[in-house]
């Protein structure tokens, strides 16, 4: 029997070996802004769990290195990631001197590379398993529940990012809900305006190039400039239009951020609606006309359902983009997770940056997976129906 290497496994094993033995696992700092001291796995963990973690990582790396059954690779990836997630919390407790509230312990480069290496293994297995859309959402839900459980259990409480959180627990959730409201609200507004506009552009050819060009140019204006430019007109509206201020329209804050995100969202929605409607087979339209359907019936009964997956792709682009762009709203007082990112950059407190960045990435990632699954479901349903 010949032993065969897995090509990706070589990369994973090399990364894991470097990260486990040469890179620091955790960083210890006497307070939140001084430079840290590196600690390896054996230094960062108690005498019992340190070697245990190393053993788990070595075995998992070997499973990845050789051509092994998918189930075994799946198990290796999950066990390695679970061990890392559980034990990084122990490192925090172990390294922090008892009763010291200033000391900060954060995961260091070795930890992040290990997470990356084994996530790569897991991603590869999941890609090869070619999961159905529902199964992918299921995996996402299980992963989210596991992380939620770890957070609630308090295992990670001794880590610096959660210390930053516990100092700001109230504002974290307030900014979080602002972030989600901004991203989802502007998407909703863009769909309400963009869909009819897209349909209009599809029907009236002379409008199409003009509208799409204007929307294209809006996309080229840098986000921080667009946010800033909207301050003046909205401030004017708040002063001069009765009732506008009562609705929460103000020069700075959430209103300009909302309008800017809305403007950025329009292009993908309108463009994809136009592309989707243009892609409806002529035969389908002719058949519908032949059956005596009115224009309105044809739009809702034939064209719209057929164009739906393409329109959804536009919505996915917008949602992921909006979740990312909403961080910039913090620059003009619009709130959102960006508040922590920019505060952290200002104070060179990286844990604070992470407190803003990690939830943003997680939200965008979850949104991408869920919408991809929905797009695939609607696309395959359409194929089945037309087959």
């Amino acid at each position, binding site marked *: 029997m010949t032993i065969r290497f*897995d090509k990706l496994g070589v990369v994973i094993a090399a990364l894991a070996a470097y990260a486990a033995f040469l890179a620091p696992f955790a960083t210890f700092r006497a307070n939140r802004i001084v430079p840290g001291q590196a600690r390896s796995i054996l230094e960062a963990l108690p005498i019992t769990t340190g070697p245990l973690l190393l053993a788990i990582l070595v075995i998992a790396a070997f499973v990845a290195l050789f051509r092994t059954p998918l189930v075994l690779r799946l198990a290796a990836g999950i066990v390695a990631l679970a061990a890392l997630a559980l034990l990084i919390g122990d490192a925090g407790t172990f390294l922090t001197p008892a009763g010291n509230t200033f000391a900060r312990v954060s995961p260091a480069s070795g930890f992040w590379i290990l997470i990356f290496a084994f996530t790569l293994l897991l991603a590869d297995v999941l890609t090869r398993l070619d999961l159905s859309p529902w199964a992918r959402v299921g995996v996402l839900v299980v992963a989210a529940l596991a992380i939620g459980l770890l957070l609630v259990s308090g295992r990670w409480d001794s880590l610096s990012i959660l210390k930053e959180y516990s100092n700001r627990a109230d504002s974290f959730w307030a900014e979080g809900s602002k972030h989600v409201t901004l991203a989802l609200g502007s998407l909703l507004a863009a769909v309400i305006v963009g869909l009819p506009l897209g349909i209009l552009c599809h029907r009236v050819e002379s409008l199409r190039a003009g509208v799409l060009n204007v929307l294209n140019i809006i996309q*080229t204006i840098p986000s921080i*400039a667009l946010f*800033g430019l909207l301050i003046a007109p909205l401030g004017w509206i708040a002063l001069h239009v009765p009732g506008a201020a009562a609705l929460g329209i103000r020069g700075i804050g959430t209103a300009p951020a909302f309008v800017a995100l809305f403007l950025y969202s329009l292009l993908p929605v309108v463009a994809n609606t136009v592309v989707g409607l243009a892609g409806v087979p002529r035969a389908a339209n002719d058949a519908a006309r032949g059956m005596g359907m009115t224009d309105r019936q044809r739009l809702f009964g034939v064209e719209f359902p057929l164009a739906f997956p393409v329109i959804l792709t536009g919505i996915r682009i917008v949602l992921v983009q909006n*979740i990312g762009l909403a*961080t910039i709203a913090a*620059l003009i007082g619009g709130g959102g997770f960006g508040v922590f990112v920019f505060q952290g950059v200002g104070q060179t407190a990286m844990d604070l940056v992470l407190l803003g*960045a990690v939830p943003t990435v997680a939200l*965008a990632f979850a949104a991408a997976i869920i919408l991809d699954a929905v797009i695939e479901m609607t696309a395959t349903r359409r194929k089945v129906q037309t087959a």
Partner: protein
Amino acid sequence: MRAWLPLLLRLALVVLLVAFITSPGWFEPLLKPLTENNAPAIYNQGSLLTLTLLHLRTVLIATVAATIVAVALAILVTRPAGAEFLPLSRSLVNIGQTFPPVAVLALAVPAVGFGEKPTLIALFLYGLLPIFENALTGLTTLPANVVEAARGAGMTGWQRLTKVELPLSAPIILGGIRLSVVISLATATIGSTVAARTLGEVIIAGLLSNNLAFILQGGLIVAALAVLIYDGLSAVERYAARRMGSEAQ
């Protein structure tokens, strides 16, 4: 006559842009009404020309690096030896796109310090994705008969790649580069939140001092650059497609 109009408009935009960044003083009366309390109407903490050139340099370096890496990766995963990585690389590209640029910037700061470097890293990562995706599409959707014919003509793998596959997919790869440049031009402004010297400096100075004129001039220069570069690269792309017998359509 109508065919000349777009060209004329673009020329006018170029002239206007060059005039503005070389002698912004001429435009002061236009921007003055936007300022309050006698604040300066033209950015006065650095020359707009220098900032524009630095901005373009940052985008250029990041895009060149991203193009080299993305095209090399796409070639690797479309060869038989790297085929195993193809599905995974697709998922990774998908995941990579969910990272907001601000987060990448902020997280790069502790590793490389403030200034241009974190901006370059963020632009590089962001530039990779569209180029890689397009290069992959280009290299995997080549007409099978052409590749087969090249093989039948006795071309080696390297010859097929450089003489057939890359030239044929050039228009699509260029499309990816164009997308990536336009995104980078706008994203580079965010780099100024971590002290990179780009046109974002002008916008942020405007946000901090509540000076609408600064925000407007910074934003408009970037937008004009993006529109012009987008148009220029589209023309190059059309030229490449025409040379390849326009099968890219």
